[in-house]
């Protein structure tokens, strides 16, 4: 779980239900995308609904995994394991940096 000490421009929440393979995949994909496009200006909070089920109501979570972009506003939601990078970028409203990065390339190793 990566938390940054100072306030970040990008505040992201990843809702999962148990540490399933899909949840792990989603988290890895998310970290990779963030490092690539939002390095230093994002924070990810992971909410496991099996541990805190009541939180599903607040962000109107139906599907898991769901990534919620809480900041910058407006709130946006991306559902799925985030394996489709293009769609995640569109969903987060991030302009892809050039065409050298594709979802096929592995950046999974570049965790903080």
């Amino acid at each position, binding site marked *: 779980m990566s938390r940054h000490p100072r306030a970040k421009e990008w505040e992201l929440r990843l*809702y999962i*239900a*148990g540490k399933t393979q*899909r949840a792990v*995949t*989603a988290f890895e*994909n998310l970290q990779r995308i963030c490092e690539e496009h939002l390095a230093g200006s994002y924070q990810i909070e992971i909410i496991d*609904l*099996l541990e805190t*089920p*009541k939180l*599903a*109501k607040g962000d*109107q*979570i*139906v*599907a*898991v*995994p*769901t990534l919620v972009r809480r900041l910058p506003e407006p*709130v*946006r*939601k*991306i*559902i*799925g*394991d*985030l*394996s*489709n*990078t293009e*769609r*995640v970028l*569109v*969903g987060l409203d991030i302009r892809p940096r050039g065409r050298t990065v594709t979802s096929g390339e592995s950046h999974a190793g570049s965790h903080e």
Partner: protein
Amino acid sequence: MSTSETIPAGIPKCPTGIRGLDEITYGGLPRGRPTLICGGAGAGKTLLAMEFIVRGARDFGEPGVFVAFEENTDELAANVSSLGFDLPAMVEQQKLALDYVRIERSEIQEAGDYDLEGLFVRLAVAIDGIGAKRIVLDSLEALFAGLPNEAILRAELRRLFSWLKQRGLTAIITAEQGQGTLTRYGMEEYISDCVIFLDHRVADQIATRRLRIVKYRGSVHGTNEYPTMIDETGLSVLPISSLGLDYGVSNERIATGVAALDAMFGGQGYYRGSSILISGTAGTGKSSFAAAFADAACQRGERCLYLAYEESAAQIVRNMGSIGFDLQRWVDEGRLRFHAVRSTLFGLEQHLVTIHKLAAEFRPDCVVMDPVTNLNAVGGDAEITAMLTRVIDYLKQSGITAMFTSLTSAGLVIEQTDVGISSLMDTWQLLRQDDMAGERKRLLYVLKSRGMAHSSEVRQFRLTEEGIRLEEAQ
């Protein structure tokens, strides 16, 4: 196949508390299983579902969860407060939980595989929070509009329904009617235990509601389209045709209100609990005989319900006063109740339900419907006959004597015009006018009267200030 599926009586039922619905389902919805309620917009799906939850919690001690996908909880509470349902109070008492699941397609981007575990978690929180035995999902179809991947959705719905069954919840799932299909997204594929269809159609600007049980696995059920009504007490379904021809009959005779007419029926008048038809062209005096009948009932100390479809109560009272019937006196004493309404204001079903409600409330001994032919304006002949069959069955079951007047068109053979409804009637009395020797004469004869000797004379009569006078037979 399990025994519960082969023996209808073995299926546990969950009462809805909705008038009529528990009768045609022989006890309610299948307990511990999902039921699909489908129908067009405005058919009453949400209301039926909400009554199931509220009445379950209030009258049967079974807490329930209402999950709304389309209306928020404030809207829901406001919509049913007029029915006397205080949702916020019930939520406070932990008898009921409301959950609004909002899925906004425009906010959601899909990027890879997912499942609906989030929804399951939410439902579990709501269910466990109050120990719910019932649940409503209104309507799950919103998921199809809100989530992009239909294949995932369908797999997850299957999982959801078996999950609800495992938890032993009696569930209602609502779904919108599709084009030529029961539901738009084929929800009937997933719910096979019980499917109920609500219909709300408008013909000639008159709305009618009906309910039909499309299927009910392992249980007998009424198969007709049942008239349904929504009023200030909620939904009611009329199980009328479930009644058979098994009502008791009475040998008691009651006065017609015209002494000389009593004489034509073996000197004793009509049978109590029978149905009487009075046919005639305009101005032949049908309402006068109806008034005589109502007046006689009130004089015996009985109660009479007068359903007027053509004239106002005040007008009937005034007109009948001119021929010696003081009906106002009975109204004042509470023995006579008028219900005057233009027949075209409602559909036949609504009239039917109204008669039921008035009869249940006022408990009359006699009922007058004047004239039933006015209902032609709101239904075809076959429909009117069907409705009158139901009315007569119901009134006979309750031992109520009923008089119906029928306006026939001049120039037609009178015996033919009412042939459809006459078979339902025990006594059929005809009125007509003849021009004879420069004078218009009123004539009366009894075409039939089941179970009694009756006169076959054609009698002339006059409407006088002291009532109806039959001339001596010639």
